[in-house]
């Protein structure tokens, strides 16, 4: 396949994955101001659930995909219930640090209860093949990442615009108290937001497992860091911003992969972050963000 086209597909696939994860972060942040550092561990719970199910004899990839998504959604709801609810009305920094703590706990629990070493998971390997279109060969995983992410984002947009609960989530991102005055249960809105965020993470977990063929305690951590950066560059808390930021990050990364000589390949992440930070010099509020004052958080 044409090299340039291949690289564009690469960038789109990377970008799609970052967008999914970044959207998950943005949904939660926009309605409750929580910077969810434990999002990577939601991906982790999802992946380890599949690992354990496979170890117990699960063989169907379809069931594994459903399990990954369900486990992630449940994990997200559980994190909220146990750790984030007590700090729901606390300042942003308190929530952020709580989430950071949850992230450390869960990562180390994987180490403690399963193993610090990567564990092989082959159940989803079938997703990662080469597809041939005449003379062209493309990675099935990349095509699926692109299509699934696109469909997921479409579904999310429909949900947020059509369903009452979706409307409530959008309304709550600006004015939670008044949403409650509509008789809509705050806990339900928040649980839904977490479930959506978790489901998005679960989809990402499927792709990660299919690509890597293994799970490890820090599976989601670095991905989520990148997704955070995508959120920041898109405008923190803005959903379109998260999607756009994720795509931009994908293109920057692939661009660097192409441009950097082999021996400097190790600097890819460093340069990606440096470029983003440099962009922030010119747009501190992000591409689609609004200027918010430091420490702002409406209850």
């Amino acid at each position, binding site marked *: 396949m044409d090299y340039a086209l291949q690289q564009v597909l690469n960038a789109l696939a990377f970008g799609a994955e970052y967008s999914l994860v970044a959207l998950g972060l943005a949904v939660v942040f926009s309605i409750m101001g929580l910077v969810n550092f434990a999002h990577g561990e939601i991906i982790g719970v999802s992946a380890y659930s599949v690992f354990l199910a496979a170890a117990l004899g699960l063989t169907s990839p379809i069931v594994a995909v459903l399990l990954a998504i369900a486990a992630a959604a449940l994990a997200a709801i559980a994190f909220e219930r146990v750790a984030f609810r007590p700090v729901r009305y606390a300042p942003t920094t308190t929530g952020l640090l709580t989430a950071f703590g949850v992230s450390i706990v869960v990562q180390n629990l994987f180490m403690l209860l399963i193993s610090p070493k990567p564990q092989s998971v082959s159940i989803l390997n079938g997703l990662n093949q080469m597809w041939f279109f005449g003379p062209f060969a493309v990675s099935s995983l990349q095509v699926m990442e692109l299509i699934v992410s696109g469909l997921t984002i479409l579904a999310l947009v429909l949900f947020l615009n059509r369903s009452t609960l979706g409307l*409530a989530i959008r309304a709550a991102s600006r004015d939670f108290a008044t949403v*409650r*005055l*509509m*008789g809509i249960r705050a806990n339900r809105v928040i649980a839904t937001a977490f479930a959506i965020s978790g489901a998005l993470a679960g989809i990402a977990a499927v792709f990660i497992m299919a690509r890597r063929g293994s799970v490890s305690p820090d599976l989601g951590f670095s991905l989520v860091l990148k997704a955070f950066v995508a959120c920041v560059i898109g405008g923190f808390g803005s959903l379109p911003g998260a999607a756009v930021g994720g795509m931009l990050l994908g293109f920057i990364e692939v661009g660097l992969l192409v441009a950097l000589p082999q021996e400097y390949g190790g600097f890819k992440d460093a340069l990606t972050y440096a470029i983003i930070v440099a962009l922030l010099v010119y747009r501190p509020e992000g591409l689609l963000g609004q200027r918010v004052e430091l420490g702002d958080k409406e209850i």
Partner: protein
Amino acid sequence: MLKVENLSVRYGAVAAVRDLSLSVGQGELVALLGPNGAGKSSTINALTGLVAPSAGRIVLDGQDISRVRTEDRIRAGLTSTPEGRHIFANLTVGENLRLGAATRRDPKGVRQDMERFLALFPVLSERYAQAAGTLSGGEQQMLAIARSLMSRPKLLLLDEPSLGLAPKIVVRIFDFIGQLKAEGLTLLVVEQNARQALRFADRVYVMSSGALRFDGPPSGLADEHGLLNLYIGG
């Protein structure tokens, strides 16, 4: 219908409401007047549960709802249109109205109510698919009240519906409030604009500095020596 006994609200060291008792009977329109900072909004927010009272009881239809969550008080038929309107600016007019009916399970009734308010306020109908943030202040107030009514409340609390609006629009809004009363809705209206609030009021409470200063019929307020000027400034 509503009975409030010895209600107090504190924000840290600030006592915003002190030992307030009031009641609203079925079908009544009761006005709660007082100057800025008197504690009127705090009272309303305590009634809806958005702020937790430090003491007192709130009884709705014989049921003590003091410990009931906001969401469930709305479901029990008590609704408020908050001060400053608080329409969802990023949602469309139609979406605002839909959220108002979020607790209802009768799609047909919801549609009828929606059509009724859209006919009543043609502006809302024209701007149905536009972001509510683009409406003018008066239109936003109409939307906010209509949104509250979409839940078919038994008791509607209105917090300063005239705030920041031109006199002509205020008159229109109170005409509508009078109409609601005529239709049998029970209302507690908080105002600084006493003249308008008293047009349809059956009874009046006046509060200042967190405490009740007057309780009686609107005519009594005029008799009361200088009270109107003292607390309401007009």
